[in-house]
């Protein structure tokens, strides 16, 4: 039977583990939502043969390879091309016309995971005639997913769904023009990578690196506690030019955050916000 005491002990072990990971490896999950982190840690524990989070901690402190496995568990890599097509549709309609007025654009995908949404954005910029004057920064804290994003090779089994998403998102060409199939994979056009810089960046610990016109950060903030959310939103605010845009996940918002008054809502359903010109 799982008693309140047993849970309380386990929660202490979890806090200590997060502290240990931070001190030893510099990855800071201490301000992440606990329910999610705990599920992931308990999953790793169940696979490991250890009996408690404390035993797991001992292994993690002394075995970097084992730590990397946990790090992979702790990052969320559920994504798809043109995920939530209406989001892209809304950007095409309400943001792109204004982005077209800039001679040069910087776009930041924060928490880009395996890159599907980065390529989606690149395709959209191409179709809108903006790609050649854009610089896209695609960042994630997890070096493994960045390698996958860089390769731009994805399992072919999702392509039907992606094609349908692309069409719903307002795609103006044939989606198959952007990739070639090889065995069980699709390989995205090398040209799409030309303006993309893939890099490791940790929203928890790293700072501003460029002046950005649009930030896309979807379903990342939901994992953070309020303080960390506010700090990351502040980082976004400092990175954005006046009149710049933020696009968040469908259950995320900048309302209720300290930067709320500096932004106006462009699309409340698709979570698009514009920084007011001061």
């Amino acid at each position, binding site marked *: 039977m*799982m008693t309140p005491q047993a849970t309380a002990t386990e929660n202490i072990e979890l806090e200590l583990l997060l502290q240990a990971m931070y001190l030893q490896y510099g990855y800071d999950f201490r301000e992440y939502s606990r329910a999610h982190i705990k599920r992931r840690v308990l999953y790793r524990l169940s696979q490991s043969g250890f009996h408690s989070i404390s035993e797991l901690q001992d292994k993690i402190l002394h075995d970097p390879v084992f730590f990397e496995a946990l790090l992979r568990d702790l990052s969320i890599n559920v994504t798809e091309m043109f995920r939530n097509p209406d989001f892209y549709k809304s950007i095409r309609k309400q943001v792109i016309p204004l982005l077209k007025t800039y001679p040069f654009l910087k776009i930041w995908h924060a928490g880009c995971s395996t890159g599907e949404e980065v390529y989606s954005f690149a395709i959209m910029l191409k179709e809108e005639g903006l790609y050649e004057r854009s610089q896209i920064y695609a960042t994630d804290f997890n070096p493994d997913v960045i390698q996958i994003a860089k390769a731009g090779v994805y399992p072919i089994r999702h392509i039907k769904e992606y094609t349908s998403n692309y069409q719903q998102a307002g795609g103006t060409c044939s989606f198959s023009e952007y990739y070639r199939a090889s065995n069980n994979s699709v390989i995205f056009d090398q040209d799409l990578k030309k303006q993309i810089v893939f890099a490791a960046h940790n929203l928890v610990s790293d700072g501003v690196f460029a002046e950005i016109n649009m930030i896309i950060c979807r379903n990342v903030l939901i994992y953070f506690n309020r303080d960390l959310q506010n700090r990351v939103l502040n980082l976004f605010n400092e990175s954005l030019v006046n009149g710049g845009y933020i696009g968040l996940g469908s259950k995320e918002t900048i309302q209720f955050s300290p930067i709320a008054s500096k932004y106006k809502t462009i699309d409340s359903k698709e979570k698009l916000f514009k920084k007011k010109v001061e």
Partner: protein
Amino acid sequence: MLQNIKPLILKKNYLKRKLNKTATYRAIVIGTSSGGLYALKQLLPALPKDFPCPLIIVQHMSPHSDNYMSKMLNEISQIKVKEADEKEAILPGVAYIAPPDYHLMVEPDETLSLSVDNKVNYSRPSIDVLFETAAETYHRQLIGIVLTGANADGAAGLLSIKKAGGYTIVQEPEDADSPAMPTAAIQMSKPNSILTLKEIIKALLRPGFVMPPR
């Protein structure tokens, strides 16, 4: 299989058993899929405005659905029904519905959180994810209810609630629109009660169970 389990359940005595204990329930979690909307349309409007517990609900739905369901249920109910928001404090007399394509979790500080983690039991939201995190937070002060549905999600979660000392109820498979989910939950967790939807509603309204004693 069901026939073997049923006699073990103290269906008639379940309230007596509970009344003798002093456990007060602080939250109710509900999981359902196919046929669930109909069941929730019966259950939620039956509860009074001052219902003393929050209800946290996973209803399987298409990832592309909008928030029509929570809006509609809110319109026909006296309690407040809303789509769950991340970091939202869990309050009594409010029913929180998991948003489409997100897992809904209960945090140790009794707030709600969301994730787009991998599907569990082919489902996002998953009933198991909600039930397991709720059991960790509320322990024996939690009621878990599995209603009609067409797969096995919720069975492992209901077992977690039972292991944590919470009270578990499953809709009678014969009473359910889709019996598979109740059947799986009964087999895995041997719930405290197996009741028809009508009986579940009656139990939630009876003084001394969830409602304060008269």
